[in-house]
């Protein structure tokens, strides 16, 4: 994340103007990514929208992602923009339940793009049988690995759990830690958990668990943990993960001390920054564990919503329809190196990660949003702390799972 003095200044000016009371034809949009790539893609899309709709006066307020997470709780009530970015799945649930988001089922039914081209992602935009937002990007998760190390040791991309374990053992014998990870901010551990769970038990179990319908002490979840334990106990993860962020964890990967990373596609940029030649990095989907289980993937989406208190809902719908167009999404996601949710969008054929990612998610039997977006925040927090603790000490498994049951029984009341 880089700021320049100028961008901060511009941000200040923008926020000063944003709250000026809106006239008809004014469209205020709150966005939440100041990172250079996403910022550029968003600004380009806004320019295109302005060209297409010269009568609409668009005002943009772009803030830092973390700040946005807190600020949205307040501006939805007090000072609502006409469009705001936010996340689908359980993350939108509190706002939907408090009546702070506009129901846009009408748009999903009438707009040709939303009607037909968003089938894979529609369920995550749905709550109470209605649709509440329009996704503009999503990205695949999977295993990023050091191709040069794999080649040197003659390891092929593992297709099954046994192959993964065998590869890990071979790496260990050669002094390479199989996986790097940084669990200081917890969610990275949830990525590993989700994948082992999706592969051990499948999509339904993931959904039922995050919806509070299955207990954590359920034998199926125990099986997931047992599989994970196998990896942890063999020393497959870097030892000091609890003090590292996901960016810190790139360092051993870059240095060649660790060979694999269970991550989202946004990390590719981090590999570049850390000085890894991208020819030496490649991607494979998380291997099969229980044979015959349909392959579901983690593919978190980001979306736009209309606040219930928006002043200009008509133009806001126009903007959402504009975003849903295949061209808009193709251009946008080409800039940020992610996947367009519209299945009719072109993708960048030169980017091997995008090509593989698109292939992975479009053939998936189901798309999960990620543990901390599918589960309510309070559950996710406790769950991820439990996963971190488990990674540090697998002998605490029963204790952790029992505690999560208690939290679950309180959170889903």
């Amino acid at each position: 994340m880089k700021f320049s003095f100028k961008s901060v200044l511009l941000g200040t000016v923008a926020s000063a103007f944003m709250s000026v009371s809106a006239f008809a034809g004014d469209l205020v949009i709150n966005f939440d990514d100041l990172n250079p790539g996403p910022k550029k893609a968003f600004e380009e899309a806004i320019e295109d929208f302005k060209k297409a709709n010269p009568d609409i006066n668009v005002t943009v307020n772009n803030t830092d992602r973390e700040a946005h997470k807190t600020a949205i709780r307040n501006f939805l009530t007090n000072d609502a923009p006409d469009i705001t970015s936010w996340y689908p799945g359980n993350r939108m649930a509190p706002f939907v339940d408090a009546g702070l988001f506009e129901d846009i089922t009408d748009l999903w039914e009438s707009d040709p793009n939303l009607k037909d081209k968003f089938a894979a992602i529609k369920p995550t935009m749905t709550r109470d049988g209605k649709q509440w937002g329009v996704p503009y990007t999503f990205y695949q998760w999977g295993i990023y690995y050091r191709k040069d190390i794999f080649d040197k040791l003659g390891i092929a991309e593992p297709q099954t759990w046994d192959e993964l374990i065998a590869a890990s053992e071979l790496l260990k014998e050669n002094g390479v830690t199989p996986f790097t990870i940084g669990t200081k901010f917890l969610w990275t551990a949830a990525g590993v958990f989700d994948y082992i769970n999706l592969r051990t038990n499948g999509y339904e179990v993931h959904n039922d668990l995050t919806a509070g319908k299955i207990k954590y002490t359920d034998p199926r979840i125990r099986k997931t943990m047992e599989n994970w334990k196998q990896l942890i106990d063999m020393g497959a993860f870097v030892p000091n993960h609890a003090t590292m962020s996901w960016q810190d964890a790139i360092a051993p990967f870059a240095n060649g001390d660790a060979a694999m990373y269970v991550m989202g596609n946004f990390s590719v940029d981090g590999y570049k920054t850390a000085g890894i030649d991208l020819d030496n990095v490649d991607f494979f989907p998380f291997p099969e564990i229980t044979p015959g289980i349909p392959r579901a993937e983690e593919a978190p989406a980001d979306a736009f919503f209309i606040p219930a208190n928006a002043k200009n809902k008509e133009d806001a719908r126009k903007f959402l329809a504009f975003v849903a167009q295949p061209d808009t999404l193709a251009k946008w996601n080409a800039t940020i190196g992610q996947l367009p949710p519209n299945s009719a969008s072109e993708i960048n054929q030169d980017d091997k990660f995008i090509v593989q990612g698109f292939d992975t998610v479009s053939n998936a039997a189901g798309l999960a949003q990620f543990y901390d977006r599918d589960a309510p925040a309070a559950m996710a927090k406790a769950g991820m702390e439990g996963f971190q603790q488990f990674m540090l000490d697998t002998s605490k498994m029963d204790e952790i799972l029992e505690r999560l049951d208690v939290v679950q029984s309180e959170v889903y009341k």
Partner: protein
Amino acid sequence: MFPAPIEKASSAKQFAYKASLPIALFIWLLPLLAIFLTSIRPAADINTGNVFGIPSSFQMIENYTEVFRQSPAGQYLLNSLIITIPTMIIAVSLACLTGYALAIYNFRWAMPIFFLFIAGNFVPFQILMLPVIDMSNRLDVYNTVPGLVLFHAAFQTGFCTLFMRNFIKALPQELIESARIEGVGEFRIFWYLVMPLVRPAIAALAVLIFTFIWNDFFWATVMLQDASQLPITVGVKSLNGQFVNQWHLVSAASLLAAVPPVLMFFAMQRHFIAGLTLGATKG
């Protein structure tokens, strides 16, 4: 004087004492020295493990300008000032009024109100956090610098009142009595008689509040969200996430955050210590 003055000891002991002073200081400030050295090192030193030794080259200017170039550190420092100075002025002025009222007038409520200020001053921040957020929200000042300043000023009024009241209480009360007998109005007594006498207390409070507010992290985290408004304490923490494994830049930014209160402390040392140790000699 206790312990016995070292001048009375043997010259060997005196020498040992004088020699031990810088050694003790060196150990005491070791963390700070280490971080200072790190802040003037080139990045390569840290990666090659030269953390203790002499930097391979001195990059003080480069590293510090890099911090300003790569991050809005200048903006953060400015924001800190914008938050700190108005708070200082409001809290100290209000405390002059309240402290005066509680020290000079012997009314029945003086003691309970005084205790209310003291007790409020000690409550944990967390019990105030959610209502203050909710209230600021409804007053439309959440996520604005003035909203934060108002809260800070109100909260610091507690400590400042405690300080002012005790200071004014220690002034000779006969002065005020005789002014009253001569028919001078209450507000004139306050302004022309008492205010000039409490100048040292105002100075002490001003430096203390400056330091407290400058170093505040919690309330700024809670009350401000826009990156463009954050003070340096919050800014420096977010830089820690931004400069991944670039400890030389994190160190430089941290030291920058520490400079203004340190300058304030050295410039106003006597007042500062007088403020902090209020009550340490009473009894």
